[in-house]
Structures are given as structure tokens and as C-alpha cells.
């Protein structure tokens, strides 16, 4: 521990029951980025689920919009320690998108326009816990927050909710993604504070 600077507190670190350990509450919506923001025109946008047997399911923007829409209100937790409570989204449940996909895979690697990837157990994308969302607070999702569409998996750290999501590759073996190959946890449960590998 370094020498204490008198009066320095840093960000509030008081425990609130709604917050996972080590998180602080924020009212704004910080923009995190690991690269240039991709601009994806809606007429060429697509979402693809590729199963481990090589079969593919594709949705255009119009097809995604024609699917049943849900409006999850969820808390989100970023591994950089901010949490935001009661965020409002609109999108399509992964249960809907995975309904007709024939797979025995246990893992998914989400991949994005711009090259980002993140891995998740396929079960965590099912059971009403994950969505492809395109609307935030009643307005189209801005590009800096992952628009046209991003993954929303709020029960895991927010880096799992891939911005600019383009598809899922279903896998029998877990394949670590962008942050998971650089020290971050393969699962990332904020309530168990699984930030880094081995946590």
C-alpha cells in the first residue's frame, strides 16, 4: 500500500445491497471502447448463429425487427467497477433466436463488427437472461453504446454484452474471447467478483 494522501477518498465504495462487491453506482452511461467505433448500415446488417455442425441461421435487420420484442429492465455491472441500475432496453430474446437452432454445443463465442469477441456458456444465453437489443431508453441504441445492436447478458460483467454484435459461433469447447485471452475471467459473474482468470 502506498502512502496515504490526507483527505483522498476516491470514488464512493460504500456497499449498497443492489451492488455486487467492489462496484460503485453511476447515473451516467460511461462509454468504453477498445477500438474505433464501427458504423454498420442497417441494410447490410445481419446477425448469424453458426452451429458447431456448420449450419447457419441468419437474420436481416427487418427480420430481427419482425420477431417478438421484449423490453428488459436490468442492472448492468462493468468490470471497471461502475454499475448502473434499472436500465431499459428493447430487443429479441436469445431464446427466440436459438429456438430453431439444432445444437449440442455448450459454449458460444459472440463476435462483433470491428472484430471484438467474447465467450459465454450457451446455457447463460437461454432462460430469458440474454437478448440482442437495439433500443436503449426508448431510442435507437447509439453507435458508441454498441448500436445498431448489441448483446445484453446483464447477469455477467458487461464486457460479455458484446457491442456491435454480428453473430454467435456455437462451440463444444470454450474458446476465450478478446478480454478473456488477456487475463479476464472466462465466466465473469459480478456477484462472485470473477474479474480475472483464477478469481
Amino acid at each position: 500500500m502506498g502512502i496515504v494522501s490526507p483527505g483522498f477518498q476516491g470514488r464512493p465504495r460504500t456497499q449498497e445491497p443492489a451492488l455486487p462487491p467492489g462496484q460503485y453506482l453511476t447515473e451516467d452511461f460511461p462509454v468504453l471502447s477498445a477500438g474505433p467505433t464501427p458504423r454498420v448500415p442497417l441494410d447490410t446488417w445481419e446477425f448469424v448463429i453458426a452451429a458447431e455442425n456448420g449450419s447457419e441461421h441468419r437474420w436481416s435487420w427487418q427480420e430481427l425487427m419482425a420477431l417478438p420484442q421484449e423490453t428488459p429492465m436490468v442492472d448492468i455491472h462493468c468490470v471497471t467497477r461502475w454499475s448502473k441500475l434499472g436500465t431499459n432496453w428493447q430487443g429479441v430474446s436469445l431464446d427466440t433466436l436459438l429456438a430453431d437452432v439444432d445444437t449440442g454445443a455448450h459454449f458460444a463465442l459472440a463476435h462483433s463488427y470491428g472484430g471484438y469477441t467474447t465467450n459465454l456458456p450457451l446455457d447463460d444465453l437461454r432462460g430469458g437472461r440474454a437478448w440482442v437489443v437495439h433500443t436503449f431508453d426508448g431510442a435507437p441504441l447509439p453507435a458508441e453504446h454498441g448500436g445498431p445492436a448489441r448483446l445484453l447478458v446483464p447477469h455477467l460483467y458487461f464486457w460479455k454484452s458484446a457491442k456491435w454484435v454480428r453473430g454467435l459461433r456455437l462451440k463444444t469447447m470454450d474458446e476465450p474471447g478478446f478480454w478473456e485471452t488477456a487475463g479476464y475471467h472466462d465466466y465473469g459473474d459480478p456477484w462472485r467478483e470473477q474479474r480475472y482468470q483464477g478469481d
Partner: protein
Amino acid sequence: MTEMSYLDGNMLDGPMRELFTVDLSSAMGRCENCGMTGSMASLHVYSNAPGLVARCPSCEQVMLRLVRGPDRAWLDMRGTTFLQVPMPMEQPFPGPL
């Protein structure tokens, strides 16, 4: 603050000094993806992120990533073919170590 949210490779100096004594900003590096060779100080560094992501200013591919946990650090340089580091002229006829 959206498109323009990166900094210069300069800022990698402090974090990298925790690992190595090399002054990274006076080193040159070659991008594994496009082959461009230039000062590491001119990389585009995205720091509003779970770790530091340094990209080639020419092709924007990732050349270096540095993640710092409380008791560990992870360094990934697979996007960098080589680092060329200036050395003091103390060995006029250097051999392979």
C-alpha cells in the same frame, strides 16, 4: 468522445515500466498485420476499457494489450512482430548474449 476516444502510445510508458525497464516510447515496433514499422509512441491507445489496447495507427489492428489486476499483469504482444529498442553504446562488438 466516440470516434476519437484514443490516446497516443506515449501513455504506455508508465504502465509498461511496471514490467520492464525499456522506455517503450523510444522503441520502434512492427505491426504483425500490415508490416508498418514506427514509433510505439504513435500507436493509438484505447484506455477507457478494461485494459489498455494499443492499435497500429495505419491498419488499426491490435499490436499490444496490457491488463493490470491488483496482483498480476497480462501483456499480449502477438500483434507486434518486433520491438526495436535503442541501447547505449557500451558494447562495440555485441555478441548473442
